[in-house]
């Protein structure tokens, strides 16, 4: 059993926190894990991505080969499209629908939606709106993690919640609760 995941978005949206939580959750499960990310220049409002591979057998490459990614998890709809050559023939996209427009030539929403329809296997959610509904507007990334948890076969939602508690624990229980609530809201929304 192996799952290859591309986490993506725009610098500052919280992609790397999602990666850290999944990594922590996998640590004590006797799973192999590799998670490659790019730091530095790309964080300044540019596109960011992390390649996350989880397997019960040895993982060799830190990078996901083209055509093998089981799941693209994106905090931004256009960014979800950037990695299509990596998506496996039966792979899924889970994406936020809210665009992050910081370039003059950002495509129209219609063009993005049409392109996502071409792929077919897409779960689109307005994670920003869901985060606002549960009164934690800054936890949109945890809403998206919750949505991804619905298809993360190798890690249970309970385990991911423990990961959230671990990662945010240093900043106080209130922040843990807010993030877990956002996570659950995302999980429920994706199940619908």
């Amino acid at each position: 059993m192996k799952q290859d995941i591309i986490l993506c978005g725009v610098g500052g949206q919280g992609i790397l926190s999602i990666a850290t939580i999944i990594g922590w959750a996998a640590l004590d499960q006797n799973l192999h894990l590799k998670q490659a990310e790019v730091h530095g220049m790309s964080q300044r409002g540019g596109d960011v991505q992390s390649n996350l591979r989880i397997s019960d057998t040895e993982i060799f490459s830190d990078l996901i080969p083209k055509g093998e990614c089981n799941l693209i998890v994106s905090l931004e709809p256009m960014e979800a499209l950037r990695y299509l050559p990596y998506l496996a023939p039966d792979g899924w996209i889970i994406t936020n629908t809210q665009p992050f427009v910081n370039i003059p030539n950002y495509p129209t929403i219609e063009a993005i939606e049409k392109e996502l329809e071409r792929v077919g296997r897409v779960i689109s959610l307005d994670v920003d709106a869901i985060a606002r509904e549960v009164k934690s507007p800054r936890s949109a990334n945890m809403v998206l993690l919750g949505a991804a948890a619905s298809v993360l076969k190798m890690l249970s939602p309970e385990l991911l919640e423990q990961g959230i508690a671990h990662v945010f624990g240093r900043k106080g229980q209130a922040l843990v609760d807010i993030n877990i609530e956002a996570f659950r809201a995302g999980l429920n929304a994706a199940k619908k």
Partner: protein
Amino acid sequence: MRKQLLLGDEALALGALHAGLSGVYAYPGTPSTEITEYIQQSALARERNVHSDWSANEKTAMEAALGASYAGKRALVCMKHVGMNVCADAFVNSAMTGANGGLVVTACDDPSMHSSQNEQDSRFYADFAMMPCFEPATQQETYAMIQAAYEMSERRRIPILMRLTTRMAHSRAVVEVNDEARPQNEIHFPENPRQWVLLPANARVRNEQLIADYASFEDDAATMGFNQYFEGNDCSMGIITCGIAYNYLMEQFPEGCPYPVLKIQQYPLPTAMIRRLAQNWNRILVMEEGQPMVERRLVGVLPTTATISGRLDGTLPRTGELTPDSVRAAVGLEPRPELAASQVAVPRPPALCQGCGHRDFYTALNNVIAQYPTARVFSDIGCYTLGWLAPFHAFHTCVEMGASVTMSLGAALSGVHPSVAVIGDSTFTHSGMTGLLDAVNAEAPVTICISDNLTTGMTGGQDSAGTGRLEAICRGIGVKEDHVRVIVPLPKNYDEMERVIREEIEYKGVSVIIARRECIQTLKRHASQKSK
């Protein structure tokens, strides 16, 4: 033993601490920064009083670490690949002094230039300095290898280069680590003190010794276990992998590679192992991350009986990092079916943060420069390099750390006016100060603008060596007091900023304009720390 999820950088840092490290000396640079940051945050390092403050540049870092090694302590130097150029004098001559306490220099190369200006391959530095080099393929090996490197450094009395590349430095994996750390070394001085005084008479003796020792480094490369030979059934070719190239090869053959493989992770090149591979197969495929160093050595100049494939003959791309896909094609496997790239997803280049002081500085500078059609602006390495992109298009050159000051000097001395330099505060103290001294001595008409955000911004907000002392430094170097000007880059100050910039451009001597406002990223961080 316990399991931890560690970046390659962090596995290296923890391995060094567990090997009894006494000090890390470094200047921040992607993808190496997290090594030093891990040690700065480590409880073990605090308990053991391990030095971990940032150095002014890679040369001062290398020299301080060499001093620590002289004193018998284990020391680590970390930098990105281009930092090797800055410390090259100290690095190459550290092979001449040799090491006393274990000394490991870590260079993090950045093939594909994710955050760098070139693709230079640090293995060449080890090669011509006659120093051993290690290049791990996994995070677990990184942890083990740094400890072996300290052991070898003290056994052979030689500094060692550890080479990581971006995908090793910045990829996490589960690493099993020791519960115990080796004790730190006590102070002890070199057995052969002459070797540390590189007068020609001493250096000639040492040079002969180093060349003789080099043979023993090759013995180590054959026996320490990091270079491995794997038999294969398919006799059509043999494969040499260097560092993480092995991972991309095995990704294609999870059940085992059919070809014989020589996995190289330690240099000097294990020549006997390479000859063994070449004996039976008349085609050798070389896979290395970075430049084709091993391949070129095998190809040589004169014809050989074996066909050598790799980056030079186009079997692998000549530039850029290896990928599982390029390696798949190189071993002759069909590409996996893939979707076409989306034409809807357009590039999203990085940009200066909204509210960043560099933005306001460039706005004011551009307004003034627009009135001087002959002006040339020389910039430098940092966040503010993004000012070349839209909407600012604010300068004409960006080359390497500190070049803004000296290139503006050379242009001014060649008759260019106005000749303006733009440099960050950390870059200025890294390599701009000596160039400013040249400008002062030349009495050249240059306008040096230090965009001071009180931090090393691009790499994530590390301390900047000259914070709070830039005016004093510039005056001390000899810039006249009236021409060390400070402005606050904010939209409300544009009129005043433009007036100051114009006045100093009109001044026919060396001026320094310090545009000072804290980086908004570190400002946020400091505010949230205060509120706790």
